[in-house]
């Protein structure tokens, strides 16, 4: 009974949020809303540039952090000797995960915008997001690599497999669903983050689509922040509409990753 109540308490807020969003934001959603530029000082029109911008930001961030994170996790769990240096790296990763996103934002400004000279651009913002979510990918990947039973590895080594063959044929196929879980989490977090992109690449209002990673862009999360707090006279349904689309994006991507995960699991026959 207690568990039932606790579960209900967990689910209830989610349901309430979703219901409110759909109730208040639902009427805003239309073809024009999704595929039109914001107009009249962002008090009317659509969200297309922000939608596209968020997709850019997330995609570029993933392109950077997933290969980097998976490679780092592979090294840490399969190759690195167990010494003080490895332990130090692990400590750093844990701490990196705890750094507030506004600090990441300032780091992004210092490192990518200024030092590397990317300016305020998708590249700088995505790199900041990538750094911020790297620990998620590393930790999830490392955990799923370490969950692969030693017996499988030993079976492999015993048949003369090299380290790489073992990783490639046994460890990775077994770990892939766990890795995807990490990526899902990363996507969710990346999509919603506002602070890290605010100073590094996202613009308040920019009714053009980005053409390269060196352009600035609008983004859903920042747009939501702007129209709910910075612009007077925005009709009520607009911010709710934006929030609804943002949540829908995250949920869709999660669903896609889960689908992919199930597909992979089915394919590998175990």
């Amino acid at each position: 009974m207690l568990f039932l109540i606790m579960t209900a308490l967990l689910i209830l807020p989610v349901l309430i949020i979703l219901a409110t969003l759909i109730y208040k934001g639902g009427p805003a959603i239309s073809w024009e809303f999704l595929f039109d530029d914001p107009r009249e000082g962002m008090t009317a029109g659509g969200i297309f540039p922000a939608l596209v911008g968020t997709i850019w930001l997330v995609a570029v961030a993933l392109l950077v952090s997933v290969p980097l994170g998976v490679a780092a996790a592979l090294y840490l769990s399969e190759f690195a000797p167990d010494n003080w240096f490895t332990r130090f790296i692990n400590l750093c990763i844990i701490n990196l995960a705890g750094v507030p996103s506004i600090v990441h934002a300032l780091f992004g400004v210092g490192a990518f915008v200024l030092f590397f000279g990317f300016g305020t651009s998708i590249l700088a913002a995505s790199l900041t997001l990538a750094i911020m979510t790297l620990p998620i990918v590393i930790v999830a990947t490392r955990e799923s690599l370490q969950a692969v039973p030693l017996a499988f590895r030993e079976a492999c080594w015993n048949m003369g497999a090299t380290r790489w063959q073992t990783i490639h044929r046994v460890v990775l196929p077994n770990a892939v669903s766990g890795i995807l879980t990490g990526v899902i989490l990363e996507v969710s977090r990346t999509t919603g983050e506002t602070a890290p992109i605010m100073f590094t690449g996202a613009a308040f209002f920019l009714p053009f689509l980005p053409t390269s990673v060196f352009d600035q862009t609008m983004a859903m999360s920042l747009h939501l922040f702007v129209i709910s707090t910075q612009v007077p006279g925005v009709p009520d349904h607009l911010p709710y509409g934006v929030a609804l689309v943002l949540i829908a994006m995250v949920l869709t991507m999660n669903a896609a990753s889960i689908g992919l995960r199930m597909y992979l699991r089915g394919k590998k026959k175990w």
Partner: protein
Amino acid sequence: MHEPIMNETRAANGGNGHDAIFTRDLNLWYGDFQALFDVNLAIKDGMITSLIGPSGCGKTTFLRSINRINERLGYVRTEGSILVFDTDIYGGEVELAQVRKQIGMVFQRPNPLPISISDNVLFGFQLHGEGRTRMHKSEKEEIVEAALKQVLLWDTVKDRLDSKATELSLEEQQKLCIARLLPVKPTILLMDEPCSALDPKGTEAVEELIWELRGDYTIVIVTHNMAQARRASEECIFMLMGKVVEHTATEDMFVTPAKKETADYIEGRYG
């Protein structure tokens, strides 16, 4: 059917020319703990040798140093030499993958990979078949059939080669684990208590299989089961506290043990 790898080192290391495994002053430490003391053994080619001794005496450690699996643990230190068909496996020019290919190992708990039965059998073979990009389907089937027949498993699984290996019974899994070693043509099979996870019927079946493989492979089998050692081996090694106490023909060891410790152990006076 074995091709000795090289002969030059034989004289230098004192092998007598009939040994599959020859160790000289083998000492092994886990960190500060010494698990093997001056192990000098000559295990004959083509025979079944059983390795007995109380729990913790270093049987597993010895087996695992022969195929160099121990060194995966960073804190293991080995001294002395191990010759496998006269090649020093710790020698600089020796490739680890070659060593492992030549020496197959069977574990206490069957550890089939969670893929299909035929993929399990082909796994090792495909690891080493790098040169060729594609293997003919019929060629694969032949390999699978030959290996499974050799371990007396073919008749029970021939209709479900594509089902998961982990769905087999423990006995069948253990046989499969032996089968998957065979396509890479090992010369030595190391078995660490291969029957201890099995019921009496399974034990009997796997023993029968091991006996069947005698002659084609050099087999070293660790066992806690005296009856099994006696039934299923030609030579027997008794270890105690990391040292080899006695190594003779199995019959002699069980009828007229030379050392008092051996007699005590055989009669069940140790754990």
